[in-house]
């Protein structure tokens, strides 16, 4: 076993300005959600029911706290540090990138917390719901704020787990349970990949501090493990952010209550993967593998998601696939990696969060009030819920990238990024264009269709939602508009700090609504026109909805499930083969293993030499003894009578006893004889209650077993012969022999060893006998039929 200096391995992470107040505040911000979750069961009475909306005070206050940094700036001070274990440390750092995400998490969190109070009203498990939600929020904050790679992983896993609990929230529904499992399987798998990636990065860079890792791009550029690290990070990010081919858990996750879908599966958690890519893009962005993979996967995902969204008629499904598409876009942009692309990605994160959250919340309202999410059944709701309709309209426009919404800015930036990509810009632009059109259409279908047109009879009498419900979408719509009109608000508050955090030149970075008439403008116009045209004319939901079923064969989830299924089959078969219930096979496997390894180790070194004197010195009676011993062993093995076998065991015992006599072990002979007789007697006393030997095994297995046992016996013989050819080590035994009388006052050395030198053994041997006796007693007397009283 080798020694690797551990302290040398963990270079203690970069020393922060350790300020207790900062540490306390940051840690409190992250841990507040956990504590809140823990308190939930206790304060169930207080915080639920009519006061449930007050739960949103927690995210709101956090939001306010984080928002305060928008104006006070982040002068590199907000970091804190506490060693935990194995290189993980509770260290948090707030930079621009974290701030964007933190604001989304707490802001949308506050809205969702409030919205849930009304949406989930009357649910008996609302306390759990809030507990999971706040746990999730805390975990997510932890992910984006962690300055330590392992800590990041810790929180990352916690988001997966809380997502598991939230998806499975309707636990009596089997589909929910299944979706939760699938989601956990996929994201958990990714999580473990992340763990591996982080540990590997730690091994390569010698630190787990993310900041310190990011300072060593040259290490990654030269390390042979970079490819592996990248693959692992990709798996982590793609599973979490639902990239093709890991996307399939996300539509399933829509089984969760709508607030959860809004919060976790569109606005925040799925962006954890994006965050991870952002976070590590500075060191990897120059690597071809990084950009190629991200661009390819991003492209596939965004087109795939966009197309699929048109095949769906369930509101949440449509939104889920557009989310996948949007996530693909983000991945794709990070893959391009130019300054424009990163800016576009950062802005698009916010854009998407705003409009998609609004759409989800609206879908929730519709579902809640009409009891259906089927787009084909919906329509004309604008009169029943006018405010919601307005919000939906704004969200749809933003999604389609129509001017004066924030979405327009986002779309523009995307085109900027694709156009400036370089050698493939034309193709990328076309792909982006198609995607944008399709996503826009899908957004229209999801957000405008339910409110437009004629009110179906079935929906007559739909009630208007209460303010708690409509407040959140309206607020999001307003935000979308505000940012759309004056995007410059983001420049110094979020964008530039984020770019700083990503080590990107910030000179001349500013957002504006109007860029003049240029290529990007035309592209936007084409997008808008295409979107509106298709929505008004094509109505894809009418005839495309049958397609997914046909394509199911090829869908990744089908393949994945088939793989899982066949794995389960293999596992079952494997398990049945090994855990067959045949004790003799267990023994056989053990024996063969020992035999194979031991023989492989021993035989090459076997050095014993035959010598005639070994035979010549054997006395007659010794020959007789040996012959009898071997003969009776064979007799025991091959006799058909149990009783004869037992009797012949007796003979073996007596013969061994005589060997002990001849070679100077009288005590041994006595004990051997006594025990042997007792065993025989015991056997006989039990035997008459048992059936006769049956011919149970076939000759073939007998031959096989025979061969194995003979080889084993030979091995033992060889080992013994080898040992006997060594000199006798006498150190201990001569001490015993010399001191047995002088020190321990005993003439029989064996007895002295037993009762004095090794007294504990002897004592414990008696304990064994005693326990055995108790056991036998219990075995004979106690017969419990069914447990419990």
């Amino acid at each position, binding site marked *: 076993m080798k020694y690797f200096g551990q302290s040398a391995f963990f270079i203690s992470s970069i020393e922060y300005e350790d300020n207790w107040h900062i540490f306390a505040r940051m840690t409190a911000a992250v841990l507040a959600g956990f504590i809140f979750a823990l308190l939930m069961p206790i304060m169930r009475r207080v915080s639920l029911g009519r006061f449930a909306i007050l739960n949103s005070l927690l995210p709101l206050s956090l939001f306010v706290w984080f928002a305060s940094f928008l104006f006070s700036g982040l002068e590199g001070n907000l970091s804190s540090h506490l060693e935990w274990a194995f290189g993980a440390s509770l260290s948090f750092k707030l930079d621009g990138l974290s701030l964007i995400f933190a604001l989304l998490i707490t802001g949308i969190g506050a809205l969702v917390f409030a919205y849930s109070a009304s949406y989930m009203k009357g649910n008996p498990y609302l306390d759990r719901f809030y507990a999971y939600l706040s746990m999730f929020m805390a975990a997510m904050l932890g992910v984006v704020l962690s300055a330590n790679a392992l800590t990041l992983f810790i929180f990352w896993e916690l988001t997966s787990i809380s997502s598991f609990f939230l998806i499975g929230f309707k636990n009596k529904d089997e589909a929910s349970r299944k979706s939760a499992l699938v989601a956990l399987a996929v994201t958990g798998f990714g999580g473990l990949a992340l763990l591996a990636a982080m540990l590997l990065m730690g091994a390569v860079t010698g630190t787990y501090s993310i900041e310190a890792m990011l300072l060593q791009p040259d290490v990654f550029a030269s390390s042979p493990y970079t490819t592996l690290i990248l693959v692992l990070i990709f798996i982590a990010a793609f599973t979490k952010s639902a990239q093709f081919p890991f996307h399939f858990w996300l539509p399933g996750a829509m089984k969760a209550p709508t607030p959860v879908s809004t919060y976790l599966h569109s606005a925040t958690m799925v962006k954890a993967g994006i965050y991870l890519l952002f976070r590590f893009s500075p060191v990897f962005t120059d690597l071809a593998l990084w950009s190629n993979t991200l661009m390819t996967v991003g492209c596939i995902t965004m087109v795939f998601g966009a197309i699929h969204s048109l095949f769906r008629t369930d509101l949440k499904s449509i939104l889920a696939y557009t989310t996948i598409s949007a996530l693909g876009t983000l991945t794709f942009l990070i893959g391009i990696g130019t300054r424009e692309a990163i800016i576009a990605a950062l802005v698009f994160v916010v854009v998407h969060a705003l409009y998609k959250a609004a759409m989800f919340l609206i879908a929730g309202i519709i579902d809640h009030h009409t009891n259906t999410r089927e787009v084909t059944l919906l329509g004309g709701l604008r009169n029943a819920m006018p405010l919601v309709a307005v919000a939906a309209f704004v969200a749809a426009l933003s999604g389609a990238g129509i001017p004066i919404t924030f979405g327009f800015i986002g779309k523009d930036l995307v085109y900027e990024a694709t156009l400036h990509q370089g050698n493939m810009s034309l193709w990328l632009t076309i792909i982006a264009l198609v995607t944008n059109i399709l996503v826009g259409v899908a957004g229209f279908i999801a957000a405008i269709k339910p409110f437009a047109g004629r009110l179906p009879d079935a929906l007559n009498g739909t009630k208007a939602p209460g303010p708690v419900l409509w407040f959140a979408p309206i607020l999001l719509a307003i935000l979308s508009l505000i940012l759309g009109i004056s995007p410059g608000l983001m420049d110094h508050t979020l964008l530039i700090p984020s770019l700083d955090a990503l080590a990107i030149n910030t000179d001349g970075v500013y957002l504006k609504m109007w860029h003049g008439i240029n290529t990007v403008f035309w592209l936007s116009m084409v997008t808008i026109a295409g979107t509106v045209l298709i929505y008004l004319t094509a109505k894809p939901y009418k005839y495309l909805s049958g397609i997914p079923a046909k394509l199911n064969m090829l869908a990744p989830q089908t393949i994945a499930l088939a793989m899982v299924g066949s794995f389960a089959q293999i596992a079952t078969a494997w398990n049945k083969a090994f855990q067959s219930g045949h004790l003799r096979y267990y023994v056989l496997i053990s024996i063969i293993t020992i035999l194979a390894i031991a023989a492989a180790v021993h035989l090459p070194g076997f050095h014993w030499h035959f010598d005639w004197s070994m035979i010549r010195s054997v006395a007659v009676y010794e020959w007789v003894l040996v012959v009898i011993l071997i003969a009776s062993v064979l007799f025991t093995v091959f006799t058909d009578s149990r009783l004869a076998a037992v009797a012949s065991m007796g003979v073996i015992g007596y013969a061994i006893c*005589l060997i002990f006599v001849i070679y100077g072990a009288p005590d041994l002979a006595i004990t051997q004889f006594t025990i042997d007789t007792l065993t025989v007697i015991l056997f*006989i006393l039990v035997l008459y209650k048992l059936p006769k030997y049956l011919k149970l095994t076939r000759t073939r297995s007998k031959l096989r077993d025979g061969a194995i046992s003979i080889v084993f016996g030979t091995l033992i013989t060889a080992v013994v012969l080898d040992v006997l050819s060594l000199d006798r080590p006498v150190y201990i035994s001569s001490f015993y022999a010399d001191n047995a009388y002088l020190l321990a006052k005993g003439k029989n050395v064996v007895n002295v060893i037993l009762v004095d030198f090794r007294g504990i053994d002897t004592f414990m041997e008696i304990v064994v006998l005693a326990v055995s006796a108790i056991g036998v007693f219990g075995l004979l007397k106690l017969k419990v039929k069914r447990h419990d009283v």
Partner: protein
Amino acid sequence: MSLNDYLFFVIMPILAAAVLLVFVRFFIGPTITDRVLSLDLLITTGMAIIAVYSILSDQSNFLDIAMIFALIAFLSSVAFSYYLKQRKKND
């Protein structure tokens, strides 16, 4: 010829031959009682061997073993006959 030589080259071979003969009966049976009987006789012969051996090695302690043989050897015969009766009864 000394006593030891005599014991070693005459008595021991006779006893060994006896043991072999008894073992032949043990081997061929044919009934279980034959085997039990030969087991009994084997032990008795063993006692004789031990006695001779104690002279050969000048160790009177070996006689303790013979004592134990004498004391408990017949127990297995008792058990066997008990068994045979019981089995008959149970059939």
